[in-house]
């Protein structure tokens, strides 16, 4: 019955195309709420799928699903307020696409078959393209072009990767369904060479989507061009979906005894991404791009942790969850900033603390959370990853990692303080609406709570998800 | 009981010795010079007078003389004058004494700055500057003594024939120490070639300019204080140059007084034959004392090993 979760938003999305803006909004929030409810139920009952060959509830999938639906609900609420101010011509189309986007992403989290997951991820690209194009300006058009093109090429690689994995089955005449769960069990019998090749293509392919350097290039433009709720979705959720693909493939590799191979590659990409982020954060001029690069950084951190295994893997999952929460809240806040200052330039902003205290709190708290300060979860995640790195004896890697983290923090701090405290006289365009504040607060509070107390079910799920990589304690 | 018997006369005789310096200088100048008891007359005169206080001053101005005098007096209590046992003595009293003198200096400077006079500030700056190097020297010397004796009290260094012990172990290098300490004496007590108490131009003074505004009994205290301070250093030097214990306190005392006369005379001679250094030269001069002490320490270590 799990299919319902992506069917409902799909239908709702199609429906929304034919609705007026007002009712479309209602549909949006309603669907979000329903979806959230359903995914909670899914956690409780964990039902089977109608097409078990294609769909299955996995631990990693459940985690992402919960994050997705929580985020979507809050973002949809924010959007209703956002749309009041930032006028969009075809609002029902916008909302409809958002719902389709949700359905495709839900599909990613639930799909177990390699090809189905690939199709789902491809679908996310297609669904999100119109969202990025929302404003219809030449710039947004260019961005959309870049996004679709680079991602398609990447995804094509992933496709080839999937094919190669099927080849690795052929090579050793392994006869099981092409599902992650099945392959993970028989991983030992797969042909290592084709498997490695497959992993590489899948990593590069999904890595492009996930925003690992050097394939991250579409990400900054997209996140800065898209309307803030969309950027929040992209950064908070879409990246996780792509990561899910890599994560599951990596699991197969580990089971096949190729964990070192895939792990090292993951770590390498992680480090490169963090360094790349550092490079562009230091002298960044636009705050939305800044946040985008910080997403790249966090994806790097997550990849690094996953590659490490052990404590690192556990930390990586924590980072994954908390990054989604905090980063999406930051993007929503950036929406407030954009609407109130009317510019993406950091230069044009300032004295947020004076002009919009509530937004400032959300913004600065988010900044602190994202740069790994308690009481937010990324702190503990990074802590575990770094300790894990030392534990695994990867001292040099850890050194570079820490160095880049510090650099990024320094750069980010400069910009954050500029935005929050620098002098700024010009009047503010909007007043702080409740609906544009408390979704962020909810997200941040969730992160804060989760960094001190994790429900047992959640904890067990996380541990089960990473147990293959020797995760947990 | 002996400590008191020694201590009281020591204090009382402190104002006497500076007269020697004046005499010697006068002699060199081919003059008769003031009477030997001149300083006593001065003190008496000052104690009789009243005082004029600057409107700028606060209670610190009055506190200064008292504290500096008390510091000097207390310091003397720890010193085995003429090798006799001191009034007090405890582990590390050396440090206490040095820092006590520091306290005295603090208040002298504070009192000077209290008057808001640019000249006194100038003097104060110098008074704050040069002793820093002196302290380094002094500590260097005491490190050496500690290596030699393993004790850290003035008594253990200068009581009875302990100085002799120092000479025995350290030998020639101790001569350096004596020189170094003599330089310290000149600096700490504002004598030529560091400072010229007899000069006329306030711009070139250190100690004298700092006390310009003091008058009457307060000024008397200051004078007394500086006499005691000089006495303190001179007494130490005397113990170093005449390290013997003649058995009987009286004889010791006699010998001690003789040596003291000689030391003060030496100071007088120096004041007569040397000119005051330019201010920016003074640090170099004082640093030589540190160098001496340092060399002495390093050399002696060879023997002590």
């Amino acid at each position, binding site marked *: 019955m799990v299919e319902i979760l992506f069917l409902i938003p799909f239908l709702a999305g199609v429906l929304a195309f034919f609705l007026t803006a007002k009712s479309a909004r209602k549909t949006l929030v309603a669907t979000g709420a329903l979806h959230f409810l359903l995914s909670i139920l899914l956690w409780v009952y964990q039902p089977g799928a109608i097409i078990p060959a294609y769909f299955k509830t996995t631990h990693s999938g459940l985690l992402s699903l919960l994050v997705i639906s929580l985020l979507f609900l809050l973002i949809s609420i924010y959007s209703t307020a956002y749309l009041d101010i930032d006028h969009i011509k075809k609002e029902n189309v916008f909302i409809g696409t958002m719902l389709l986007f949700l359905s495709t992403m839900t599909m990613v989290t639930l799909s177990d078959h390699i*090809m189905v997951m690939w*199709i789902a991820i*491809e679908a996310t690209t297609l669904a999100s393209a119109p969202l990025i194009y929302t404003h219809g300006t030449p710039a947004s*058009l260019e961005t959309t072009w870049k996004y*679709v093109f680079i991602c398609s*090429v990447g995804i094509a690689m992933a496709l080839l990767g999937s*094919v*190669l994995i099927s080849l690795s089955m052929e090579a050793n005449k392994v006869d099981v369904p092409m599902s992650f769960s099945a392959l993970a069990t028989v991983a030992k019998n797969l042909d290592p060479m084709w498997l490695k090749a497959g992993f590489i293509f899948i990593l590069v392919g999904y890595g492009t989507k996930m925003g690992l350097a050097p394939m991250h290039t579409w990400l900054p433009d997209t996140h800065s061009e898209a309307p803030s709720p969309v950027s929040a979705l992209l950064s908070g959720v879409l990246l996780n979906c792509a990561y899910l693909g890599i994560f599951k493939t990596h699991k197969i590799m580990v089971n096949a005894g190729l964990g070192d191979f895939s792990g090292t590659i993951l770590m390498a990409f992680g480090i490169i991404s963090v360094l790349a982020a550092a490079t*562009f954060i230091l002298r960044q001029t636009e705050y939305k791009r800044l946040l985008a690069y910080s997403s790249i950084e966090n994806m790097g951190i997550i990849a690094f942790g996953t590659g490490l295994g052990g404590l690192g893997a556990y930390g990586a999952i924590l980072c994954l969850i908390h990054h989604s929460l905090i980063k999406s809240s930051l993007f929503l806040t950036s929406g407030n900033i954009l609407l109130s200052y009317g510019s993406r330039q950091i230069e044009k902003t300032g004295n947020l603390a004076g002009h919009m205290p509530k937004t400032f709190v959300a913004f600065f708290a988010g900044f602190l959370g994202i740069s790994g300060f308690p009481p937010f979860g990324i702190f503990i995640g990074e802590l575990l990853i770094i300790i894990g790195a030392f534990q695994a004896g990867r001292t040099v890697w850890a050194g570079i990692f820490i160095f880049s983290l510090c650099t990024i923090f320094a750069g980010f701090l400069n910009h954050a303080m500029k935005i929050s405290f620098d002098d700024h006289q010009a009047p503010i365009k909007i007043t702080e609406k409740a609906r544009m504040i408390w979704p962020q607060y909810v997200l941040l509070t969730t992160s804060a709570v989760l960094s001190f107390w994790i429900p047992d079910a959640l904890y067990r799920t996380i541990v089960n998800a990473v147990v293959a990589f020797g995760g947990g304690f | 009981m002996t400590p008191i018997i020694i201590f009281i006369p020591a204090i009382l005789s402190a104002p006497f010795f500076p007269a020697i310096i004046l005499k010697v200088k006068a002699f060199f100048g081919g003059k008769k010079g003031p009477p030997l008891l001149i300083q006593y007359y001065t003190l008496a005169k000052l104690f009789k007078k009243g005082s004029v206080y600057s409107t700028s001053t606060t209670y610190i101005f009055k506190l200064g003389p008292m504290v500096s005098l008390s510091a000097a007096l207390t310091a003397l209590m720890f010193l085995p004058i003429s090798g006799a046992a001191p009034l007090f003595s405890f582990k590390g009293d050396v440090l206490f004494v040095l820092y006590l003198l520091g306290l005295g200096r603090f208040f002298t400077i504070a009192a000077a700055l209290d008057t808001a006079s640019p000249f006194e500030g100038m003097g104060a700056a110098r008074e704050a500057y040069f002793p820093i190097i002196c302290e380094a020297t002094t500590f260097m010397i005491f490190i050496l003594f500690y290596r030699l004796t393993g004790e850290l009290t003035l008594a253990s260094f200068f009581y009875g024939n302990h100085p002799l012990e120092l000479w025995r172990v350290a030998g020639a290098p101790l001569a350096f120490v004596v020189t170094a300490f003599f330089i310290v004496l000149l600096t700490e007590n504002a004598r030529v070639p560091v400072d010229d108490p007899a000069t006329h131009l306030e711009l070139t003074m250190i100690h004298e300019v700092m006390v310009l505004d003091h008058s009457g009994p307060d000024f008397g205290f200051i004078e007394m204080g500086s006499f005691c301070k000089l006495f303190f250093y001179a007494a130490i030097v005397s113990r170093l140059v005449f390290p013997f214990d003649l058995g009987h306190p009286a004889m010791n005392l006699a010998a001690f007084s003789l040596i003291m006369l000689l030391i003060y005379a030496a100071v007088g001679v120096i004041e007569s034959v040397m000119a005051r250094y330019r201010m920016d030269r003074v640090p170099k001069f004082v640093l030589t004392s540190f160098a001496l002490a340092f060399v002495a320490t390093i050399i002696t270590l060879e023997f002590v090993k």
Partner: protein
Amino acid sequence: MTHLVDIILSFVLLSIIFSFGSSRLQGLIKALAFQGVVVSIVPFFIGHDITEGGVLFSLTTLLIRGIAIPFYIYRFIEKVAAHRELEPIIGYNGSIFTGLLLIVAAMAVSRKFSVPSASTSLLLLPTAISLLVGGMFLLMARRKAITMILGYITMENGIYLVGTTFSVRAHHIVEFGILLDVLAGVMIMAVILQNIKLKMQSGGEDTSLNIISKE
């Protein structure tokens, strides 16, 4: 013994070279169509037992790859009246030379891989690789967006070749995926392209394509 397939595939290789060398869009599209036809019929010639499902898929693919897409793009060019010139970033001679190198390299590389059903054909893997990399080369070496789409399709052909011919029990889901990919990909790209054309009347198509934005 040289397999029949190899003969066809060698033509495909030639078509790659040709596409590298052709200075005009039409030529490129023709080459593309040819590739599309070939890659979609190759499965017939490889000695698998052919299920009717397989046949169905192959025919649809033939339809889409060999006819629909090229035709659509041809029409598109007519509509937007794009300049016929390709404006290469890497010159034609250079491209051809690269193409030759590429094929040689592909040959060399494919020696190292042991293909499950290698018995059938020698050129299969090299062609696939050449298509793949050649497609990417076009992506990088030609400035026009339309050319980039063509390159993308070439790449897809390569993937399709691998996907259909090497996995013996052809997973229809795989083929379906590939189909969806090329279809959806090309469609949405074309749509965007159209928009670009409309938006940027001023500079014409090219401006939208060597777009340089901040990092």
